[in-house]
């Protein structure tokens, strides 16, 4: 069953869009990921992930206001759609199930 396809990076981006709620646009998302996850994100990877997920219907976008710092170019804000939220919850559920399925011995062993 291939109901939801969500790559690891996509999941992070999607979550971050959720975290930023109404303030999620390119540079904002990029900086949020960089500060929270201490992980470098290239504009290219981010933008193509955003567009991809928009195409899949996980995200929708609206055009924001333009400002001088951006050379008069508008911001594009992203919000998670209901479908996107479902996808996130699905991947979270899958992980929880997997976590729960790990026998305790396996975890214990790792700690030795």
């Amino acid at each position, binding site marked *: 069953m291939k109901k939801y396809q969500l790559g690891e990076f996509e999941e992070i981006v999607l979550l971050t869009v959720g975290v930023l709620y109404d303030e999620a646009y390119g540079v904002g998302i990029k900086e949020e990921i960089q500060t929270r996850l201490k992980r470098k994100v290239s*504009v290219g990877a981010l933008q*193509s992930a955003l567009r991809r997920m928009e195409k899949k219907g996980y995200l929708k976008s609206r055009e924001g206001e333009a400002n001088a710092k951006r050379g008069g170019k508008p911001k594009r804000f992203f919000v998670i759609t209901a479908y996107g939220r479902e996808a996130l919850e699905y991947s979270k559920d899958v992980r929880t199930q997997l976590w729960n399925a790990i026998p305790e011995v396996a975890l214990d062993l790792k700690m030795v």
Partner: protein
Amino acid sequence: MIKHIADTIFKWYCHPDFYLDIKGDLEELYSDHLVENKKKAQLKYLVDVILLFRISLLRPIFQNSIIKDSGMFRNYFKVSVRNLARHKMFTAINVIGLAIGLASFLLMYEYIKFEKSYDAFHSDSDKIYRVSYVRVQNSMDTDKDAMAAYPTGKILEETLPEIIDHTVSKKFDFLLIKNGDKSFKERLVISADPNFLKLFNYPVLEGDIESMLSEPESVVLTESRARAYFGDADAMGKILEVVSPYKTSLKVTGILKDIPDNTHYSFNMLVSDKTLEEGQDYNNWDWNNYYVYLKSDREVDLAVLEAKANDAVNEHTNNLDKDENWKTNGTRLDIHPVRGIHLKSDFTYEPQIHGSEKAVDFLIIISVFILVIAWVNYINLSTARAVERAKEVGLRKVIGAIRKQLIIQFLCEAFIVNLISALIAIGLAELTLPYFNQLVGKEVIDSVWNQLPFLISIAAFVFIGTFASGFYPALVLSNFTPISVLKGKFQNSKKGIALRKGLVIAQFAASLILIASTFIIYQQVNYMQGKDIGISVDQVVNVTVPESDAETEEENIAARNKLKAFKKELANHSAIESVGAASNLPGGDVADINSTTTVVRFAGDTEPTEGTTYIQYNDEGFLDAVDMELVAGRNFSEAIKSDSVAVMANEAFLRRLNVPDFASVVGKKLQFGTRETNTKYTLVGVVRDFNRTTLKEQVEPSLYFPWFNADDLVIELSSNNYQAGLDHIKDTWDQFYQDAPLNYSFLDERFAALYDQDRSFGDTFMVFAILAVFIAILGLYGLASFMSVQKSKEIGVRKVLGASESQIIFLFYKDFFSLVGISSFFGFPLIYFLMNGWLDNYAYRISFPWVLLVISLIIVLVFSLVTVGYQTLKVAKLDPAKTLKYE
């Protein structure tokens, strides 16, 4: 700048729907980074733009085209990559061939660009011209001399309105300079007037361009020479002591950036020409010893300018010397653009060895050959694989692929092969660059990375290569009808086979041409080096004694006696055969000798003989030291008083005067000019012709005058004990001239150095010929292996019917024999046409070596037969039971 480029790129590829807001993000990040460091911010911006190049963000490539669907587009790539990965040999042969081909093409291209860039760095370089004199006789150019008379420039600037500036400059053989206890023999010294730096605008590091050459005894150095003399200290205002050939001191008034390699007129040191004023006649129209340059204010028609300049100069000089008509009558000015000098000049007395347009043309041909051979490999191998891929094509068509899609699919494959090759080619070019620079003997470029045009042309070649090599296979492969291929009736088309054969013939012909040309070039160079030049310069050492700084007559006599004693002491050793001295050493540059275009005739003769006469001064020992043969008469002798007006001539000189019997003219008197009162020189001897300079030139008609104090010594060492001879020279030198450094050189090395350029041309040619042949053989290898695999069934049947392995191999050979035969049919005339033309550049050349053509043919045959034979043998050895199992 970087940002601007990045912007353009980004706008070009980004999907218009996304452009505005992503651009906004980029700008925002840029303005954040800008606070730290502008350059870094720009670079980060560029990196971001490059990372944004992703399929999901690309604009649709062709509106309304099938590629619009990026998913399908990706599929083409995927299938191509898998296909290439599965057929490793096919891919490897193509990639290796293309990478080598592209790398060598691009390096060669850089070299050709370098050769063509000579003197282009002057601003307004296309408005700068050089004036030279050409002697015309019976409307033929007899002497083309790059130099002109000093006043020419001034007169032309005054009379022609389009000439806005001129400069006159002179080249020294060398300056011997003392700075403290260090002494330098500085070559590449020129003198010039203050206009020189304005006309040529070399970048000035220190000093005032208006004044740095206006005072006498000023010198301008290049950066690296200034460092050599004064280290890290400031050189400005410092004094250099010149000891020879003039005794003077020069004050450093300016420092220039080092002169680039790509100029026809290089220098390390620029002396103000006021320094030399005494002893020079700046109004002399007869003394063509200066390089005269003009600058115009607009593009001019050279023919018109030349005509006007000739009129102006003739009008001026006719008034000066009406009676001696040879000066103007029959002499014309030649004006040529400074940018054309390096490759196009056919003048003597060029300031330095210049390049040859022909050599550059040859290299262009060979580099194109290499690239085309590599592309041909791709075409051949791809179409040979057609049988293999026919089923794939049939299936795709049945599923519903249209022809356009298939073409794109195959072009995609070609693109990937070309792209990978290009990447390897860049690495290959960078790695081999030092060797390449060494090969061509010039620092063409130091790295491919800082050559933006180089990288751009790589990108261009990926696209050109994709179409050149991929288009035909794409057309052929996409053209199959599904029914026949899927039914298993498919065969290579006749047309395809004919084309493949044609291309193989072309490859063979190219290989033949390259191999034969390499042989011919080497044979000519070896011939020149090994030819009997008329004298023997083995074991002959040259030592130059320091110029005497005598001021009074007594000092002068003392210096002469010292030289005499020095020579005597040198000869006083069993390891030294003979000692001589001359004003010019054999094996020099064409320009390394004095000459005159004045009439030289026997006293009483009225018959005028015209042409350049070359003049050397030497002592009585010179003939012995270089084993120069006397044909008639006798050598000079210092003991004979009358020998102060003696002269010797060479055979070429007497031949020009139509003397049938050389002995008959010994004792006659020779005169320069037409006046009866001119000095009469007694012809005491006739010497055998010898080639003073390269064998590109004829033997020069020469006269030899006595000069017993000449300062260039030639010392012949005894061949069995030359180390002792050298030691003796060192000891004696220290005894007499301990102040000056001893520099000695061997004359045969001087002669060998004359052919450096030819040899480096031969080496370059050879390396690239080997590469081209290698690529061709590589292609042949691939082709043979495909064909033998395809024919494995036929071979199996033949074996079952009783054919032996050798019979089978011969079957394949027959094909290749005829291909090589046809290619030599086309190749041989081409080789003759090309290489005979090249050989005609040399006054002394080998006759066209037909046997080398046969040898080249044999080499090509052997290589291809081994390649083909190896592949065929593999298949021929297979057990027919295996190859026929499924039939």
